């Protein structure tokens, strides 16, 4: 009941933030090819003085052309975003922690026409996220975990990169969005039944995007706001003397349309539902290696868009300090 109360409060708070700040409320299509920041922020709870770090590689491959929910057979366009992510979290005490996420981004647009290939590639430091987290319930003490967090997305990445002729590229090929954004985050997990290693979790991430006031020199650009919901279940299994933790999550993401100079852009925004069958390997007492493929189940895009076909994340986690031995990580994108 306590958990449910927290969950309801958080959902009401998040909805309030999104609705009040967004009129008109739209969200970030570029994210479908963009840098996976908001989906990666936030560690699970740890004891006071624990430093958690994770480095990961994220591949987002987009080659599915859709109008609404309809797929167009078209093999001419491909977009890939590869991100190197460095995440760090420090637990100041048992109920408060600071998390940070930094990114370095490689993007590619590839068009194949009459057997000719045209490619544009960009790379650079991406944006970063800082987040203050409040641990309201601890898994070790209650069998349930509740965390709420809020923080800014810092526009560290450039949003004015040019191609090799010096022509400014558009927003979805830039490593940064050029705007300060607000991210709210909630994580709820509970051990299931008599298996302390089996955990069900729910994660909600809301992103309220600011405005890039210097887009293409004289315009403004605002990526639409978004909300993501992850629901998953995971367990730990022992094979030989190795500990593995398989998990299965469903991700729902809603993104509204982008705006240029306050005007809604067609062919942006949408809804996506993906499935994430993940596997982590406890390679040491404080270290975990994880692999998370992400497979699209359903999407309904605004207008016509190239939308993700496949996604993969490989990461390495290490904790400097004691971690909960019974913890089963359900990794998130």
């Amino acid at each position, binding site marked *: 009941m306590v958990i449910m109360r927290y969950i309801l409060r958080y959902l009401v708070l998040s909805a309030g933030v999104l609705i009040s700040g967004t009129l008109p409320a739209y969200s970030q299509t570029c994210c479908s090819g963009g840098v996976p920041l908001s989906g990666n922020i936030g560690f699970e709870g740890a004891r006071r003085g624990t430093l958690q770090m994770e480095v990961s590689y994220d591949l987002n491959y987009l080659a599915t052309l859709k109008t609404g929910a309809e797929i167009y057979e078209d093999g001419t366009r491909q977009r890939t975003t590869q991100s190197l992510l460095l995440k760090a979290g420090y637990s100041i005490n048992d109920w408060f922690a600071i998390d940070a996420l930094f990114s370095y981004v490689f993007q590619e647009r590839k068009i194949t026409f009459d057997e000719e290939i045209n490619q544009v590639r*960009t790379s650079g430091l991406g944006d970063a996220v800082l987040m203050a987290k409040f641990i309201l319930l601890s898994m070790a003490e209650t069998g349930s975990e509740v965390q709420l967090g809020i923080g800014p997305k810092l526009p560290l990445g450039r949003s004015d990169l040019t191609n090799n002729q010096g022509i400014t590229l558009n927003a979805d090929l830039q490593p940064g969005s050029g705007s300060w954004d607000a991210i709210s985050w909630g994580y709820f997990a509970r051990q299931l039944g008599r298996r302390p290693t089996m955990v069900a979790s729910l994660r909600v991430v809301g992103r309220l995007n600011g405005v890039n006031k210097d887009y293409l020199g004289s315009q403004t650009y605002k990526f639409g706001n978004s909300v993501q919901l992850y629901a998953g279940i995971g367990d730990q299994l022992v094979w030989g003397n190795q500990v593995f933790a398989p998990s299965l999550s469903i991700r729902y993401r809603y993104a509204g349309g982008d705006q240029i100079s306050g005007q809604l*852009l067609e062919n942006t925004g949408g809804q996506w539902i993906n499935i994430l069958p993940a596997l982590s390997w406890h390679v040491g007492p404080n270290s975990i290696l994880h692999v998370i493929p992400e497979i699209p189940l359903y999407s309904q895009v605004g207008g016509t868009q190239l939308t993700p076909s496949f996604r993969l994340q490989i990461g390495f986690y290490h904790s400097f300090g004691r971690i909960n031995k019974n913890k089963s990580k359900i990794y998130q994108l």
Partner: protein
Amino acid sequence: MKQNLLVGVLCSTMLLQGCEDEPFSSGNSSSSGSKNQESWAIPLDEVFDGGPGKDGIPALTEPESIPAGDADYLSDEDLVIGFVVGDEARAYPHHILDWHEIINDHVTGVNISVTYCPLTGTGIGWNREVNGTVTTFGVSGLLYNSNLIPYDRSTNSNWSQIRLDCVNGELKGTEVETFPLVETTWKTWKEMYPSTRVVSTNTGYNRSYGRYPYGGYRTEHDLLIFPVSNMDDRLPNKERVHGILFQGSVRIYTFKDFGDGVTVINDNLQGGNVVVTGSEKDNFIVSFLNDPGDGTTLSFSPVEDRYPIVMTDEEGNMWDVFGRAVTGPRTGSQLRPISSFMGYWFSFATFYPDLSIYGDS
């Protein structure tokens, strides 16, 4: 030990991402626009990447055409761009052009590229025989003042659709030779040319041709997706107008200048006599130099209900919507073409800030 090995493998995987064959074109380097400016005839900082990339919007080449009666995907009010060579009439619907922007075609011996920019609403017929070489044009993915930059596949040079010249590459400075086109509704076009053929939706690409891909863009006057160098609030940005480019001067004609029937305007621009004819109800405006080829200036008056004939003159000639004399003593002659086309008001105002509006004091 096991941990160190894993960290090493992971880091190596990441480093490999930065070591691919082709260098990243922009990377962390600052803009190289200044050093490339000299290769462009237009300000490079006003050229933008449109998003889909080069050929990301695929131009069509000699697409399948069908008889008008088979074009179930068109309704009477849909806009088409019409072209006629001899007795062969061809319609290029906006429904197709919105998704492909360029159609390279071959009509009765004439090599034409119908270029259409959905963001500026400009449809212009280009001769795709350039310096004696027949080429095809593709969509470069670049925009100048929100307007299409086609590229030719023979030399990879970039051209400006509204400027009507090559702005970058081997052919820089070469001017475009245009063909007269008529933009009107499918209903009017069929009435003018009942035996017309029209581009089929069987283009080889899977697109929803009945759906306009830019949402409310053509009616939301404040929505411009890319920056433009000049704005002029005398008319709403997206109002469809007819512009004549002559001797460095530009004059705009609006549908309000024309009645429900055919209206003829005899006008003078930079010392040149022009004749402009059209109908607001039937949704077309066309223009020509008032010169049938021998220097004579004729006095035109409208002809009703005889499409494609729209004008007559004091000699008793009947002239069609492409400026061709179809009956009378000058049968077979043609009014000298003039650079003119339909487009959104803002696009003319951007490219030609000193333009005038017909009837404006």
